[in-house]
């Protein structure tokens, strides 16, 4: 059987589509949707089994997960605050509570890091159910200051006396 014209056309069409797809993948932007990630894990760096109650003034061991998908290396910091349900951060505004601890890190693009932390937990003006808030900030070279990324995690916890 000599190569049929229709079969040849199909092979040619498939090759054209594969070629166009390959070119599109080669020319695609490196990072079309830049974003950062922060996650809260338990002291074994696993999701779940978070402590529900701690003694007032005691230290709590947790694990923080941070990832950078901004398309370039970034200088980040995680800020720890204790808040109530009225002083939680949102995507545009960090919590108004003062920072208690912070951890800085430099992450490459597509890099993620987990690190264990020990944070103090205490009651806020006799409120026993507090939120442990971890906010992600990025240093802006242009502004010369830390900028809140709009990413945070929080864990509600009962503080016992």
């Amino acid at each position, binding site marked *: 059987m*000599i*190569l049929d014209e229709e079969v*040849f056309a199909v*092979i*040619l069409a498939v*090759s*054209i589509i*594969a*070629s166009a797809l*390959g*070119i599109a993948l*080669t*020319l695609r932007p*490196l990072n079309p949707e830049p974003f950062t990630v922060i996650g809260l894990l338990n002291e074994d760096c696993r999701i779940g089994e978070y402590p529900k109650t701690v003694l007032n003034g005691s230290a709590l061991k947790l694990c923080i997960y941070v990832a950078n998908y901004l*398309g*370039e*290396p*970034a*200088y980040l910091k995680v800020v720890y605050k204790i808040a109530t349900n009225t002083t939680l951060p949102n995507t545009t505004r960090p919590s108004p509570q003062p920072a208690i601890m912070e*951890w*800085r*890190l*430099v*992450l*490459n*693009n597509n*890099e993620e890091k987990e690190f264990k932390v020990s944070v103090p937990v205490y009651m806020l003006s006799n409120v026993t159910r507090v939120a442990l808030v971890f906010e992600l900030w990025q*240093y*802006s*070279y242009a502004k*010369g200051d*830390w900028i809140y990324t709009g990413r945070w995690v929080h864990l509600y916890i009962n503080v016992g006396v």
Partner: protein
Amino acid sequence: MTKVSSQLFPALIVVAVLAMMHVVCAHAEQSFDYRVAEAAKRLGELYRKGVNVTDVVRLLDNAVKAFEDGNYSEASRLLNASLNRIAELEAVADRIYMFNLFTKALIIAILAAIPLLIYIFLPRLYLYLWFRSRRRWVVRR
């Protein structure tokens, strides 16, 4: 009054020294942050040119860790080492960028040529293989 003043004066000096130390530390922290951010920005430019900056990022992260641990001399040493390494990479960044650009252009040219090569050579190749596989055939009436 004089006795109170003599007791208050050293306390005021201590408070003033502590306040000055706080200001100096805050300034040093801001300055360090700015220098690290400047290094990160330069690393971003290198990264976009296709330079592998993983080792420098690790070095810079170690500098930040040393600073947080209060080991300022080590932090400064690591930061300077990072900046030196960045300067070295910047010197070859354009060459790497051109090489990556050339590689990408070559890949695109090869991919674009595939349909054309199939159009030109596939019928010939097919015919060649078709006749080759039947070269021992004998034509009978």
